[in-house]
């Protein structure tokens, strides 16, 4: 051997193969920097920074949800029993009831909800079926029951209002029985007089009872003073109770 073994060993440091390839060196660096973590807890600044970013993401998502959710809730207000949005409507009503801060306001909300159920029963459309009406009546009954049981409401006031509403519905039922003749049942066929076995609420052309004027329940507006019949008053600020007048 021309060179000693030790000499050869010392020169091996310089061979090209003893150096890492450039591509490997670069790629490994990228991989390492992407996945590297230091085995210790993050500093307070790092945690604050991370929390800030997470809060921004969550806040943005929540804001977007509020906008989208608000639009859906608004659209749901016009839905009827059986509509896919109807549960959203009733859920928002429950939320409004729970959020009302005083007994007076809670009671007002409860009475308004009962009136809404009445309107859902009596709101006439030609394409309504007996099933639709039945659902609406069922929803009315459920609402009355839950409002009477609701915490924080004036139960006697709600009961009084519910009885008035039931009278309204009874009048409506009688008027529909005596009134129209055609009802579209679920099979799409017209049936005379709208009466079938088991069909409790035929819906011919719905004409309001002449002695009853049903007012559209507008949560924001105060009904005109000269309207007779069942009136629902939205209590102004400071008022504790809404007043209802009996139908005449």
């Amino acid at each position, binding site marked *: *051997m*021309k*060179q000693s*073994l*030790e000499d*050869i*060993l*010392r*020169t*091996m*440091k*310089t*061979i090209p*193969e*003893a*150096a*890492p*390839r450039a591509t*490997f*060196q670069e790629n*490994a*660096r990228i*991989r*390492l*920097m992407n*996945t*590297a*973590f*230091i*085995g*210790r807890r*993050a*500093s307070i600044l*790092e945690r604050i920074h991370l929390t800030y970013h997470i809060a921004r993401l969550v806040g943005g998502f929540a804001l977007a949800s509020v906008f989208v959710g608000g639009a859906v809730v608004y659209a749901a207000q016009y839905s009827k029993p059986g509509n896919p949005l109807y549960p959203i409507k009733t859920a928002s009503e429950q939320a409004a009831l729970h959020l009302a801060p005083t007994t007076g306001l809670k009671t007002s909300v409860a009475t308004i909800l009962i009136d809404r159920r009445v309107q859902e029963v009596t709101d006439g459309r030609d394409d309504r079926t007996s099933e639709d009406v039945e659902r609406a009546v069922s929803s009315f009954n459920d609402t009355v029951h839950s409002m009477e049981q609701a915490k924080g409401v004036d139960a006697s006031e709600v009961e009084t209002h519910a009885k008035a509403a039931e009278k309204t519905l009874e009048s409506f039922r009688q008027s529909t029985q005596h009134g129209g003749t055609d009802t579209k049942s679920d099979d799409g066929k017209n049936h005379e007089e709208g009466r079938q076995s088991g069909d409790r609420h035929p819906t011919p052309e719905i004409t309001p009872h002449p002695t009853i004027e049903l007012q559209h329940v507008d949560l924001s507006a105060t009904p005109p003073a000269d309207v007779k019949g069942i009136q629902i008053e939205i209590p102004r600020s400071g008022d504790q109770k809404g007043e209802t007048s009996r139908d005449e």
Partner: protein
Amino acid sequence: MRRDSTIDHIVARCKAADRSALGELYDALVARVYRFVYFRVTSREDAEDLTEQIFVRIFEHIGQFDERGIPFEAWVFRIARNMIIDFYREHKVAVVPLEEALHVPDPGTSPEEQTVTALQMEDVRSAIPKLPETYGEIIVLKFIEELDNEEISRILEKPVSHVRVLQSRAIQKLKEILRV
């Protein structure tokens, strides 16, 4: 091992959660780590894989490195040693294949002399992985990395006197393998 103040400074920044310091640490040490691994395994691919794994381990545990103890480079070589040991346990060490002739340009020698030198280097390169574990480490650290015995003793966690003994035995063993 002479404490490299530059490396110590980078390590301090790494421990202070400066992620850019990790990249600087990698740049400063990757060639040495790779070279140490390369002469202990049989292929470049294995050397690259192991080198990357070693740095993953370094980054994971650098927060626990105590700068009052051994020098950081010694700590790094210890990690590299352990991972090479694990590598050999997992992989069966095959017969070292013949490699291409390694060309080491030497303007002062004749073409015939250059060929002889290249073949010898190839033989040596192939023979080092065949050495017993500690002997191979001594050969690489002492003659290729050119560390002093004190630095080697810190890495191998053996007394300096023992390192000298191991060093002479390693050379003898390598000569036996090379039959010179």
